[in-house]
């Protein structure tokens, strides 16, 4: 979540004991639209590239690295290069990148590998996902800052 959005929400609702965030219908619609697209892309790839517990889950691995790279690109541009836009962030970041990537599937795949006694594969998969994901964010963040990209 963006820090400024967070602090806005905190100040708006700080008098209540349990704060409930302010809801913006257009923001939710943007998240829904992005989530629709991201989920379709991920599900289509997952359906066409099924991996067994002794195989490298290429579909999940690919969408996660691609989504991390895109999120680093979008968020850095939106925070540092473009005028603030809640809806772009909601559509591109929370919606598309959030739904294109998945954490739960990585965890279940890892558990299945361990259950199937493929512990080395499980460790390699988890490590490669984390290292690859961080590297992807690092690279696209750097790319945006170096290039000084405009709209």
């Amino acid at each position, binding site marked *: *979540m963006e*820090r400024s959005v*967070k*602090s806005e*929400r*905190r100040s708006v609702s700080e008098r209540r004991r*349990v*704060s*409930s*965030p302010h809801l913006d219908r257009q923001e*939710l619609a943007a*998240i*829904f*639209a*992005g*989530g*629709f*697209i*991201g*989920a*379709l892309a*991920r*599900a289509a790839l*997952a*359906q066409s590239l099924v991996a067994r517990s002794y195989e490298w889950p290429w579909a999940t691995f690919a969408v*996660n690295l691609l*989504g*991390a790279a895109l*999120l*680093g690109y979008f968020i850095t541009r939106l925070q540092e290069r473009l005028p603030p836009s809640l809806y772009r962030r*909601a559509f591109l*970041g*929370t*919606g598309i*990148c*959030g*739904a*294109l*990537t*998945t*954490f*739960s*599937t*990585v*965890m*279940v795949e*890892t*558990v*299945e590998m*361990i*259950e199937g006694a493929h512990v080395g594969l499980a460790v390699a998969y*988890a490590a490669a*996902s*984390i290292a690859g*994901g*961080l590297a*992807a*964010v*690092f690279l696209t*963040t750097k790319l945006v800052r170096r290039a000084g990209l405009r709209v």
Partner: protein
Amino acid sequence: MSFVLLWLAVGVLGGLGAIARFLLDALVSANTGARFPLGTLLVNASGAFALGVLVGVALQGDAYLLAGTAVIGSYTTFSTWMLESHRLAEDGRRRLLAANVALSLVLGVGAAALGRLIGGG
């Protein structure tokens, strides 16, 4: 279920999963400090548990595509986990970075394994 309807449902459920993630994260973020991305951690751990249950009960085919891949897959997120970790590293908060990576991994694997067990897998 026809092909078009099935994939339309994948998109709609994926959109709803993304909204659920946003709402829980916003609720958690509004009630906790901004330094540690607790919202994403809770979303991801709870989603890993839920997907574990679906795998445990051996949900397959279109049912798994809709409930697992579409809803829970969209509800949890890998990219935000990585972005928030990267930003912690940039801010020099190495302990929080290590905690965010390790806790997510340990809680995620633990939650998925527990869910799978409870589901009967």
